[in-house]
């Protein structure tokens, strides 16, 4: 199954690292979109169908938790699975994110093997309303 993926991270270098990890992990990717913060991601999601969002938490302007909360309140976006890729490991924050429907977490640093294992776990739920 091929995915259209949105990577949301304020670090361009981290966005590139995630793309590389997806390639090395053998994840079939149709298209990869990028956003530097939550606002940019939400604007992109309004007009671009994606099957999965990979989101950092600590970002300026609108952080990942705020973005995920906004997605959960949207009928159009709430079905899109979200995985958090973050250095943030606060149990309280992760509990809040799971309540908002986050499907998985990939702590930084991660390996392509970690990415592969995560996709193997969440692929059945990466269909979403806007899946390609």
């Amino acid at each position, binding site marked *: 199954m091929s995915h259209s993926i949105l990577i949301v991270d304020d*670090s361009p*270098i981290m966005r*590139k690292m995630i793309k590389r990890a997806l390639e090395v992990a053998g994840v079939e990717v149709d298209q990869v979109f990028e956003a530097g913060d939550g606002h940019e991601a939400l604007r992109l999601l309004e007009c671009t169908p994606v099957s999965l969002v990979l989101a950092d938490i*600590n*970002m300026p302007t609108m952080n990942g938790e705020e973005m995920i909360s906004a997605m959960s309140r949207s009928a159009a976006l709430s079905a899109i699975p979200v995985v958090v890729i973050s*250095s943030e*490991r606060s149990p309280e924050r992760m509990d809040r994110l799971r309540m908002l429907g986050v499907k998985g977490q990939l702590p930084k640093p991660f*390996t392509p093997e970690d990415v592969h294992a995560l996709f193997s776990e969440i692929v059945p739920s990466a269909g979403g309303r806007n899946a390609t």
Partner: protein
Amino acid sequence: MPPDELRSRLGAIACRVLEDTAFVFAEPSASTVRHDWMEVALPLHGLEGGSLALGASRGFAVQLAANMLGVEPDDPESESSASEALSELLNIFAGVVAHEILGASPMVRIGIPAPLLEAPSTTGDEIEVMLATDEGEAIGVRLAGISAVRTAG
């Protein structure tokens, strides 16, 4: 936590993050030489006076960026991404430090990394760890606000 133990744990985490993220092997070093140094820092909100900093020579930061991007050091993208590479390494380092060392400190939140444009003032409430690679490249990490740090777990 005794400063020596804190220093040891900080150094161990830094080595692990450098290896896992930038594929660089480093060990604690007694050297304090900083040449053509660039440094990034982030605040640790909720920890009084808390901050975390990471520094390296500009040339080594370019190498780190190249390793993280999967390109050669002479690729223009490596040069332009050097500061950002340090920032992202610091971000990852801070996440692990917050989890493994600051875990018992309530509500510590990691701030956004930013370049340090001038040498920070020392307060005596910080510890610094210098690391070195086999090639002699130096990396420095500094944790401030240690009097507020409680033993994790």
